[in-house]
């Protein structure tokens, strides 16, 4: 479903310097599978999520990334979204003045229009969002508030999952979804993610800690260091990392 081959990229830092982050990353996630990427801070995990979704300033210098058989590199972020690529942000963005309901309705219908589907009517949308919000314990009152404004860290992460439930993407990238969550919030969010697991949907779970993977069980675990995947294995690899730390893998990457 998602095939990344020998991906290199560079970013421009705030002081105008160019910095190479991804250095030949290769990875393949088939439909129906959940893959985890673990790695120390600075290994390039978040950069990978931005490169895949097309953020400005994250330039691909070499390699390919193919999603459902199509090269992503030339597509705008909104085109990638309409194809079904969804990023749950590590730090969900506050958008003052734009009510969450309005935002999601506009986003869903923009995606549907881009795919040549019919826009969802306002009553159908309200029914749909009400059902999904209820399942996730999100009140309609919260949905009327501006996107993420004044929400706690846990509420923001829950909103990210709610947005995924509304937009029904084909592929989810979860960037540090566990950060800032207490154990109860983590369980709620993981339950939401697990309801999205299906045979025709893939997921890439980016995390620093093994904890999240107790609740979202991956099929494959990749270890990332210094801009590359340095080791891949089954779920047991996450426990191995937790017990032994990243050092030995970083050593292999250097």
């Amino acid at each position: 479903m998602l095939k990344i081959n020998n991906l290199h990229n560079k970013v421009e830092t705030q002081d105008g310097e160019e910095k190479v982050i991804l250095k030949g990353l290769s990875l393949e996630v088939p439909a129906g599978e959940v893959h985890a990427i673990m790695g120390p801070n600075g290994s390039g995990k978040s950069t990978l999520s931005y490169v895949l979704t097309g953020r400005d300033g994250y330039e691909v210098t070499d390699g390919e990334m193919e999603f459902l058989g199509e090269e992503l590199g030339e597509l705008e972020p909104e085109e990638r979204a309409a194809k079904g690529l969804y990023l749950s942000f590590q730090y969900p963005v506050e958008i003052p003045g734009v009510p969450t309901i309005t935002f999601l309705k506009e986003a869903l219908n923009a995606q549907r229009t881009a795919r040549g589907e019919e826009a969802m009517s306002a009553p159908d949308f309200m029914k749909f969002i009400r059902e999904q919000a209820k399942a996730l314990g999100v009140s309609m009152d919260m949905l009327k508030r501006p996107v993420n404004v004044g929400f706690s860290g846990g509420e923001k992460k829950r909103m990210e999952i709610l947005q995924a439930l509304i937009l029904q993407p084909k592929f989810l990238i979860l960037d540090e979804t566990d950060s800032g969550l207490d154990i109860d919030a983590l369980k709620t969010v993981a339950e939401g993610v697990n309801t999205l697991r299906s045979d025709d949907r893939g997921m890439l779970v980016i995390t620093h800690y093994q904890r999240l993977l107790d609740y979202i069980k991956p099929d494959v675990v990749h270890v990332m260091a210094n801009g590359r995947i340095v080791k891949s294995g089954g779920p047991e690899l996450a426990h191995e990392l937790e017990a032994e730390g990243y050092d030995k893998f970083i050593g292999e990457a250097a």
Partner: protein
Amino acid sequence: MGAITHTPAEKTLIDLLDGAEDWRAAARDAVVRFGLPTKRAEAWKWSDLRRASHGIETAGQAEFRLNGATAADRLTIDADAELELAAEAGISVASIEIDIPAGTRVVLKERYSLAEGAFPTARLEITLGEGAELERVVLCDTPENSIPVVRSRVVVAKQAHYRQATLTFGSKLTRNETHITHAGEGAEVELGGVYLLEEGRHADFTSTVTHTGPGGVTHQLLKGAVAAHAQGVFQGKFKVEQAAQQTDAKMTHRALMLDDRAEIDAKPELEIYADDVQCAHGNALGAIDETALFYMRQRGLSEVKARAMLIESFLAEPLDMISDDVLREELAAILRQRLGAIR
């Protein structure tokens, strides 16, 4: 200082006002002696009227219309009404004096109908009697090549409430002056404004609020968004006289630079002679939040749509003060439509 050489626009204006009385005579005299204001005049340093008027040489016609008919020079308004400033191409002047009687409540919808190449100088004198309420909603949607110069003087008696909401899209040069005398003693003034300037447009908001009596409340909120090669100007002044103790006045101007080549000039001023007052001003310029833009695009919104939503959410607040739902939604819809074209 030697006599100045008048531009064709100045000559036309001088001829137009020849033999005039009252304020017109004073205006003519000023043009004869100094010409049209240039950036060398402190009050016009970011809006060079003389320069903008180049190319406009003929005289035109301008008039105020009330509910569709030519308005008298001086009138009393005690019910909701529509005021229109209409001007054809060329240089023109128009004037109206409006009394809002004590205790009445009026919503005045004001709009400008200008032809391409219109350069009207308009003067409004508005007087609010005790306890009167005036809500003045101004839509300044003018052709790119026009130069509206509109100066309003508003006298607000005690217990009166003056509310002004202006939506401006700018032009070659748009100057919107509001000068308020605020009696305090239960009187309140709310000044709201929004400007959205496409490439090549210029809009100047200049206002003074002079508090003359105690306990006056003033709230000013101006928000703008300016594209490349466009210029937004805000000159706001609160003056608090010694008798105006316990004045509560707040001035806020916030604007978005939509491009590095946008220009926004702001001069907030407080001049306070009373010692027991609460006065504050805030002025902030920023750019579109690129992180928010990416977040919205990642959810499937096009860049144009995402930008329009972000700018609209930033600009909308001053329009919230319009009490009439239909009128507020009408202006919001006009703003939204113009945002669809902004880059």
